[in-house]
């Protein structure tokens, strides 16, 4: 199989995911097989980032991971979505929420291009480092 550039692979995958959302899993398996065959497993995270960029650029789609200690209420969710829309220019935001009590409080928002860590845990660690 001919070796394709990562950007090209990302572009194609982004298009296929949007066009055929029911084939997401199959597409991901094929992508994994491609990476293994071409010994490019170490650059998988870059490929994911490229796919996210393509989705954002072409489709205005953004998937974000949100971690909090107690879970999000609707107001917080809206605020986060608005912030991401302003920061990334995406039109369609998908939040993947997770509850991590060890954060103590606050929130961590991760996207392929940016990360916001406003957790109490991080602030305590920073405070301790600054003593």
């Amino acid at each position, binding site marked *: 199989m001919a070796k394709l550039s990562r950007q090209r692979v990302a572009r194609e995958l982004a298009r296929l995911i949007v066009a055929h959302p029911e084939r997401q899993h199959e597409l991901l398996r094929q992508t994994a097989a491609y990476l293994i065959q071409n010994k490019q497993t170490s650059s998988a995270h870059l490929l994911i980032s490229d796919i996210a960029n393509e989705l954002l650029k072409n489709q205005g789609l953004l998937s974000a991971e949100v971690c909090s200690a*107690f879970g*999000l*209420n609707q107001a917080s969710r809206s605020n986060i979505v608005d912030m991401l829309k*302003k920061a990334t220019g995406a039109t369609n935001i998908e939040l993947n929420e997770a509850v991590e009590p060890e954060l103590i409080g*606050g*929130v961590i928002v991760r996207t392929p291009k940016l990360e916001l860590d*406003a957790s109490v845990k991080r602030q305590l660690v920073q405070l301790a480092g600054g003593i």
Partner: protein
Amino acid sequence: MLQLLTTIAESEVAAESAEAAGGISALGLNWKSFLFQLITFVIVLLILKKFVFGKLIAVLDARQKAVEDSLKNAAETEEKLKGAEKTIAKMLSDARKEADEVISSSQKEAAQAVEAAEQKAAKRAEHIVKEAKEQMNVELTKARAELKSETIKLVAVAAERIIGEKLDAAKDARLIDAAITNATKERA
């Protein structure tokens, strides 16, 4: 008795008168006897001279020579003895001097060695003390750093517990909203 004495005195006077009248004969010398005795004397003398005197003189000479030699040897021996005594005395004196010098030199060397050892020991002690102080400082700095780290951890743990106990969902939501608002402002 008086008559006897008178007779004797008269005979003595008569004898004296006869002697005075005889001369050498009156001395009682007999030329023949004298000559015979003289010849005998000479013969004896010659015999003695030939057979005895020579040997006797030789013996006496030899004895004298031996005595003289002995005396001479004794004198020489005495001289040599005196010389040897002088030499011995000198050697003893030199040996004593040399011994004194050796002792004095050894004492000096010993004193110098002791001094050098003392100085070396003092330097070594100083070095050990310096090293110990440096080591102590290093250990102290390390202990302070560890203590600081432990204190920070404890403070963080305590803060976590306190905040965790005080924080609830409502307060957390306010925290999140405030953080998001700040982030939005910063990006704007």
